[in-house]
């Protein structure tokens, strides 16, 4: 167990999207808009996360539930450090891995072997660490015969297998999971879901986004219910799931008022 009790500390985290910056991609349009401000349609900014506060200690498994568009995926990206909060603070202690970052930085012109090291470097691992797990990665992927072939010649399935093999062998301390993963063929899928459970057991902290409420209640130590970018409830799984279910069955006027 680690030195730090806290694994993730989120304080009033807000993440803002500026549509003018992130959707219009040419200077001409940006300038045109400034010259003709009336052409602007609708608000240009919105907060994907408005005010999220929670803390995870070592050993916690946090389930994140909520409706589509509540900000669940944005929250995972923020915990992973891919997005930085525009309001509040988010601190994550330990090596983070999201199994959604499959094959980040893969380069089609380089061989499978080179890509294992490149992907490892993107994830922040030193060469020695990758060299240590390299044989296990190759074996798990089942790509021994193709490891020195440029990635360009891989099929989509082969790429995914290699990517998953890397992601699942770097043993994260903080594991972020978005929904259930189904990669590869039948046999590989069985092997990969088995591996995910192994990783979940090995990780110090898990944050899991899922719509499967029974699964969340069974596996998680705490549940975070996000509603329109805000913490609607956080705590005891049974209690939070019950509140969420009650809301889903009959969206209470109180919450609806708070939402609008």
């Amino acid at each position, binding site marked *: 167990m*680690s*030195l*730090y009790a806290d694994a993730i500390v989120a304080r009033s985290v*807000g993440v803002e*999207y*500026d549509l003018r*910056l*992130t*959707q219009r*991609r*040419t*200077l*001409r349009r*940006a300038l045109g808009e400034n010259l003709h401000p009336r052409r602007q349609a609708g608000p240009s900014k919105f907060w994907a996360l408005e005010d999220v506060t929670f803390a995870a200690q070592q050993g916690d498994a946090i389930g994140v539930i909520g409706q589509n568009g509540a900000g669940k995926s944005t929250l995972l*990206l*923020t*915990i*992973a*450090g*891919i*997005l*930085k*909060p*525009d*309001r*509040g*603070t*988010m*601190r*994550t*202690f*330990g*090596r*983070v891995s*999201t199994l*959604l*970052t*499959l094959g*980040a*930085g893969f*380069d089609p*012109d*380089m061989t499978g072997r*080179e890509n294992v*090291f*490149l992907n490892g*470097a*993107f*994830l*922040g*691992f*030193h*060469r020695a660490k990758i060299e240590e797990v390299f044989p296990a990665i190759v074996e798990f992927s089942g790509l021994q015969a193709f490891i020195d072939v*440029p990635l360009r010649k891989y099929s989509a399935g082969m790429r995914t297998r290699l990517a998953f093999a890397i992601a699942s062998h770097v043993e994260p*301390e*903080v594991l972020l999971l978005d929904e259930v993963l189904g990669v590869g063929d039948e046999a590989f899928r069985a092997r990969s879901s088995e591996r995910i459970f192994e990783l979940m057991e090995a990780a110090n902290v898990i944050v899991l986004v899922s719509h499967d409420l029974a699964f969340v209640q069974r596996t998680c130590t705490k549940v975070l219910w996000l509603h329109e970018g805000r913490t609607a409830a956080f705590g005891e799984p049974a209690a939070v799931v019950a509140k969420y279910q009650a809301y889903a069955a009959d969206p209470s006027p109180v919450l609806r008022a708070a939402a609008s």
Partner: protein
Amino acid sequence: MRVVASGTAAGAATSGRPWDGLLTELRSVVRYRELVRHLVRAALAKESTGRVFGALWWLIDPLVLVAVYVFFVDVILQSGGEDFALFVLVGALVWKHLSSGVITSMTTTLAREQAMRQVAFPRAVLPLSAVLAETIHLALGLLVYVAAAIVFGVVVGPAFLFVLPLVAIQVVLVLGLSLALAAVNVLYRDVQNLTSYVLRVGFFLSPALYAIDQIPESVRPVYLLNPFATLIPAFRDVMLYDRQPDWSAVGLVGLGSVVTLVAGFVVFTRLERWFAKVS
């Protein structure tokens, strides 16, 4: 254990110490030096796969330029002066490092958009590795220059060693420009088009094809605002004429380069937070 991902809102929370963000970013670039090495190697490997000439393609650009200008100025206009080919080669190499450095920084940063949405690595490693790869090209170009100088019977003297501080200044300057432009280009893609035109005009406003004493005295103060109006003649001093450059002018450009690098880094770290949100 270490803090891997940690983010604080800009503005209020860090208003007292604006340098904190920069230092954090700088530290994480250093921590990801392995990634820089991989990206430089990937950039260099890219040009040699499936291509017979590999890295020579980078050199062909300045060499063709030299050939065209030698033909045009030396043969047709007969006004080239002594060692005109080497004279142009120095200017062409220095300019190629600038233009390729800036442009590949922009393109490789955009090309890694997917990775930027997937992993939390310091994004500054992208332009950094592009500029480093271009610097390796420049080093190759300098070797070609030495070979050409020997062929043309030009003495490469001890002053040639001063090429090292000049390259250092050049790299700092190009890196600063690349950081700023690569960041802005992620948000406004036509900055790249604009930049290539500015570079083309800049090439003729720099003494790459002519000597600086051909610029009228009256315009010179303005002309010298271009740092390459100092750098290219300085490279020629040490490479071609085996003499000391004007160190006071070079020192001033060096200072300006450091300021450019800091400013470029500030711009980059400011805009970086939007990269993963661009869709």
